């Protein structure tokens, strides 16, 4: 096997996200199936309205959170594979030079699908643990008849088995696509990125100081990381604000769940992004230290560029949660008479922003200490 389980273990980020997504979706979809079974038993008009509200909530929540996380997990997977191929270019190039076919190498990438299996399986099992409480809360006011928990095999298939197979297949295909390059391109450092960059663009930035130049270059060289940073702060901002603003619109449990999932997603992606930024630039940092650039300058060049991105993510998240809650109030609860008015919650936004800035800066500090520990001899290790 060319790509081992050990490499796949680096994909815990995907497992965590898959786990969250499946946890929520299983819970809601299972509820949806079970609640549909009792549709005929509903008699009063009020119950019917409540029933429809519940069904719409399920749809919105599943589509929004499930879709969002599925997208992230896929992007993360592709990113990991690309990162893996980039960092193992030489080995893979040598294998190809020795005569291994692309397909033969690519096939071993199926193990990356295991991360999806672990995540979805845990999420699925977790959902069944929380389900009794969830069902009780959804029907707290006893507006609907008793809802029993049933096992639906199709959910197991669609949320656990299918994602595993799809992720494995996607890994193999993407790896195969990425490996299609000529052997020399794999063996030689960065030849492709170098050839792709148009020269007139460099011309424009020519007079920037080196640290600024490097900052831009770091940002540009891994665009997926920019996405992850934006996504992390987006999750943080949207989910924390939503969980507090939603108190009046939904159960407390929903709020807590949102909060936990938001934080998990935010930290997983942020952690993934920063560690890859640093590990991808260890040699650069070591070389800068050899030449006498201070720790602060190294941090500024390598991590500094992501700060504005994280603020952009925060702003988008704030707008997103506002829009989503508006939508929920307008659509889901439109038949209710006493829907609480929903307004944009400025204090919550400010608290969330302050927390965000604090956490982000603490993380940056922790990582700048890590950068400090990078030995200047790191460059001499090939």
């Amino acid at each position, binding site marked *: 096997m060319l790509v081992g389980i050990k490499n796949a273990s680096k994909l815990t980020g995907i497992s965590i996200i898959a786990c969250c997504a499946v946890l929520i979706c299983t819970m809601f979809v299972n509820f949806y199936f079970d609640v549909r079974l009792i549709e005929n038993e509903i008699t009063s008009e009020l119950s019917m309205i409540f029933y429809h509200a519940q069904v719409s909530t399920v749809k919105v929540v599943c589509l929004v959170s499930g879709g969002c996380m599925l997208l992230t997990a896929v992007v993360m997977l592709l990113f990991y594979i690309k990162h893996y191929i980039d960092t193992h270019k030489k080995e893979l190039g040598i294998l190809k030079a020795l005569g291994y076919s692309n397909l033969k190498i690519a096939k071993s990438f199926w193990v990356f699908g295991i991360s999806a299996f672990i995540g979805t399986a845990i999420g699925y099992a977790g959902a069944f643990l929380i389900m009794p409480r969830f069902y009780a809360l959804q029907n707290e006011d006893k507006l609907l008849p008793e809802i029993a928990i049933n096992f639906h095999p199709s959910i197991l298939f669609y949320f656990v088995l299918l994602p595993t197979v799809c992720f494995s297949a996607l890994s193999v295909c993407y790896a195969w696509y990425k490996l299609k390059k000529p052997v020399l391109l794999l063996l030689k450092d960065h030849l492709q*990125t170098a050839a792709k960059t148009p020269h007139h663009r460099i011309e424009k930035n020519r007079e920037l*100081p080196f640290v600024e130049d490097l900052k831009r270059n770091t940002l540009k060289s891994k665009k997926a990381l920019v996405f992850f940073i934006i996504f992390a702060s987006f999750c943080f901002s949207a989910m924390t604000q939503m969980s507090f603003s939603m108190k009046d619109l939904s159960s407390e449990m929903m709020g807590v769940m949102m909060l936990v999932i938001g934080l998990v997603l935010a930290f997983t992606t942020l952690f993934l992004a920063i560690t890859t930024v640093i590990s991808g630039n260890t040699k*650069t940092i070591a*070389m800068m230290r*050899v*030449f006498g650039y*201070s*720790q602060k300058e190294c941090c500024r060049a390598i991590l500094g560029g992501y700060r504005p991105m994280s603020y952009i993510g925060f702003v988008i998240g704030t707008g997103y949660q506002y829009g989503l809650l508006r939508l929920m109030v307008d659509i889901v609860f439109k038949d209710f008479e006493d829907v609480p008015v929903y307004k944009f919650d400025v204090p919550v936004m400010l608290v969330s922003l302050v927390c965000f800035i604090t956490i982000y800066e603490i993380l940056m500090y922790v990582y700048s200490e890590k950068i400090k520990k990078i030995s200047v001899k790191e460059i001499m290790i090939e």
Partner: protein
Amino acid sequence: MIKAEDIIKSYGNGESRFQVLKGISLDIEDNDFVVILGASGSGKSTFLNIISGLERPDSGKVFYDGKDITALSDNEVTSFRKENVGFIFQQYYLLPNMSVDQNVKMGADLADNKDYKTIIEAVGLGEKLHKYPSELSGGEQQRVSIARALAKRPKVLFLDEPTGALDEQTGRQILDYICKLQKEYDFTIILVTHNLNIAKMADTVIKMNSGKISEIYTNETKKTAYEIGW
């Protein structure tokens, strides 16, 4: 002036502990061209790393104009390197995502050197300003690393087998560049090599043998690489 006093350095722990440098003392004059010769594993690179402030000795001191750099904190050593030293390695270690211009600017910015382009011209890469390291030959890459090191106007230039990865002719060219530039910019050169021919180009030759200095001599008449004719 650089002064090393009784440098001792070991690697490993317990049973496998191994003394690489066994007490090295040495004086190096300003603007000297020093070559350190020795067999593989004799501790040349380790010694170079220690006197250049990349690594700390277990005991012993390194003085630059009377200032002990082994007593400095990590941040202070970093800023010492910024002010004083330049490096050229066998493996070049250029930043692969940055163009020739940007790589050299990495050194130039540290010394606030605005006309670093003349140095790129001087090493003959004026035409390749916007090329990336992967688009250059080995000799050209090494010239970029020379330009990068010189652009920061070092007082001392450290070279660890700078021509090790190059063919003879390119290696000769590189060394002649460095000698020419030394006359122009005035700096001390400390160069580590296996190559006896390179030693003929030096002012001072230091021979190392399993962690100790076995011989020091000065060349009365220094030769250029072409005069030696290797």
